[in-house]
């Protein structure tokens, strides 16, 4: 994005990953996480905080708590934002609710379905759970949510809205087919990845970088037919980068002509960034 007159001389937007955790649980295992979301040495949530939450919220919250359990210093609540990009969250609750609506009428509709099963719900739950005061947003909602969530996190840093940001990506490994009462057929796996992002100048040297890049010259030519990146594969790449693997350019295709690049090269220091600008 450097070629345009209005962005000339500016480095491609980048941020660094300060912590990450990936959680997956079968549908039948989500209840246990819902009742006991906090691992040892992570902040305890209020009792039954997740009782009305969608499954994707439950695994995303657990992933956040896993990251926090390993951090020396949590992000500052006053300036920490949340971007959550779930993929078709709320399907099971919605199906149940609609089945009940048909048989029992509107009196059966839970008042929790709007606050707990909308696109903003995962972000809202994490914001409330941790008492964060930066903005919190739900992003995407469909199969392109991973790239959209990354792009939204760049946007929050770009406008200076926060100094750190939780990026939460969640989906079902395979979108569950449901029976007539809204119950899932089989035992589908729900997945959540939490990344704690900081603007690049604030990153420690060696941190994994995420860079917004146009296709020209930076990564392989973009095909608009690219399939969305699988969340587990993306999580493995993040893990490899964090472990020091020499990965230089792993691209996440966006649903528009751009790619988001993940790389394990050392993050630039603040002085390098100033020089580049």
């Amino acid at each position: 994005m450097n070629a345009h007159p209005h962005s000339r001389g500016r480095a491609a937007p980048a941020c660094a990953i300060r912590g990450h955790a990936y959680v997956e649980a079968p549908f039948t295992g989500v209840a246990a996480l819902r009742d006991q979301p906090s691992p040892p040495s992570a902040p305890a949530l209020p009792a039954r905080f997740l009782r009305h939450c969608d499954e994707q919220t439950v695994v995303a919250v657990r992933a956040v708590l896993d990251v926090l359990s390993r951090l020396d210093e949590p992000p500052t609540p006053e300036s920490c934002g949340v971007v959550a990009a779930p993929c078709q969250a709320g399907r099971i609750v919605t199906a149940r609710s609609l089945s009940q609506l048909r048989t029992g009428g509107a009196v059966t509709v839970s008042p929790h379905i709007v606050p707990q099963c909308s696109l903003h719900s995962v972000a809202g739950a994490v914001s409330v759970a941790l008492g964060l005061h930066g903005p919190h947003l739900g992003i995407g909602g469909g199969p392109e949510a991973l790239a959209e969530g990354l792009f939204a996190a760049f946007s929050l840093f770009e406008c200076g809205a926060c100094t750190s940001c939780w990026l939460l990506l969640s989906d079902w490994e395979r979108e569950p087919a449901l029976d007539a009462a809204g119950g899932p057929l089989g035992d589908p796996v729900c997945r959540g990845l939490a990344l704690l992002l900081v603007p690049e100048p604030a990153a420690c040297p060696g941190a994994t970088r995420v860079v917004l890049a146009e296709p020209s010259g930076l990564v392989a030519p973009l095909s608009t037919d690219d399939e969305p990146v699988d969340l587990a594969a993306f999580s493995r790449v993040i893990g490899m980068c964090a472990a020091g693997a020499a990965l230089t350019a792993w691209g996440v295709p966006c649903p528009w002509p751009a790619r988001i690049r993940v790389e394990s090269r050392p993050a630039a220091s603040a002085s390098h960034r100033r020089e580049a600008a």
Partner: protein
Amino acid sequence: MTAARNAREPVVITGVGTVSPLGSSFDEVADALLAGRSGVRSIDPGPHAREAVQFAAPVSGIPTPSREACSLDAEGFARLGRLERLCLAPAAAAVADAGLPTTGGRIGLVLGLGAEHLKTWELDFLDGGTRVFDGDRDRSLVHRLARLLGLRGPALTVAAACASSGYAMALGRTWIDSGWIDACLVGGCDILSPTSIAAFYNMRALSRRTDDPAKASRPFDGDRDGFVMGEGGAFFMLERRSAAAARGVHIRGELAGVGMSSDGLHMVIPSTDPVHAARAIVAALADAGVAPDEVDYVNAHAAGTPVGDVAEAGAIRMALGPAADGIPVSSTKSMSGHLISGAAAFEALACLAAIDRQAAPPTVNLDHPDPGCVLDHVPHVARPRTIRVAASNSFGFGGSNLCLVLRAA
């Protein structure tokens, strides 16, 4: 945010489109708002209604977009689902109003929409479909809209509950500021549905004044008992002022400031401590480089809920200080109902109307202002005055707080 923002070129609004309970053009809506007309009325309760009598602020007709802005003809448009039509019609109208060629340009799209899949599944189900059960992944509406409008820049959906479309405006401005794109179509819309009405009703968030629907939406009034749901929304084309000037296009106003924060307290109930909502207002004014006494009008979020209106009044007073005594504040939800995802964009449009017509729209039904909401209210009728700077508040479930500042061109 302030220093960086003030050094950058202003981002202005060159296109407006709306579909709402008060009309489907800027002038229709401005006329209705300034005349104090209500869009709230009784609606067909349908087979899944919670009560025998129901009321809301529905959209009565969705205009077919012009072919200059949308690749669909009238037949193709009519085949779309109602949610798609509610979003596409105002979005295409904003593109046409801006007169900005979409071919070859770097034009983005940010759609504020809080429950796209929930609504899509529900409407399909009520129509006899099985999509909610099928286990398919559907491409997001925003990408279908971008294709129909010929927009090739970044496109995404953003949700912050009732502040969703305001955050869409904030993100679009950031992308332009950053040089990522040249222009951005931003806004949001929402749709009435049996499940959403029932959920809010069962939450006791909706007014139950079934005997007189037009009097039901009464923000800041001592007799308020909840909000009235509406549908529709608004879209805007944003671009740099120099680009708009070079095209010689009419500039409707500047998106001068954005402030955002979260309560971090509760999934539904707003904080009674006004400090976090006030922080968003203060940040928006600082971003715009505007002092409190330079604000000429505040369009309040005030939906008519007992807790929310008091909390917002406190936040406005905390943010504006003594200047609050002389700044007219009104809630246009008293006329439009609460457009949910589309509310923030629609209320930004109300601010543009106030700037265009040089008058503060009223809060209708404000017969007995709540003593807990001490503000310079505009009850019943519009108040003519010089309006150069208008602020619009939007708050949402999860404690999401947003303030936009709009300035005359």
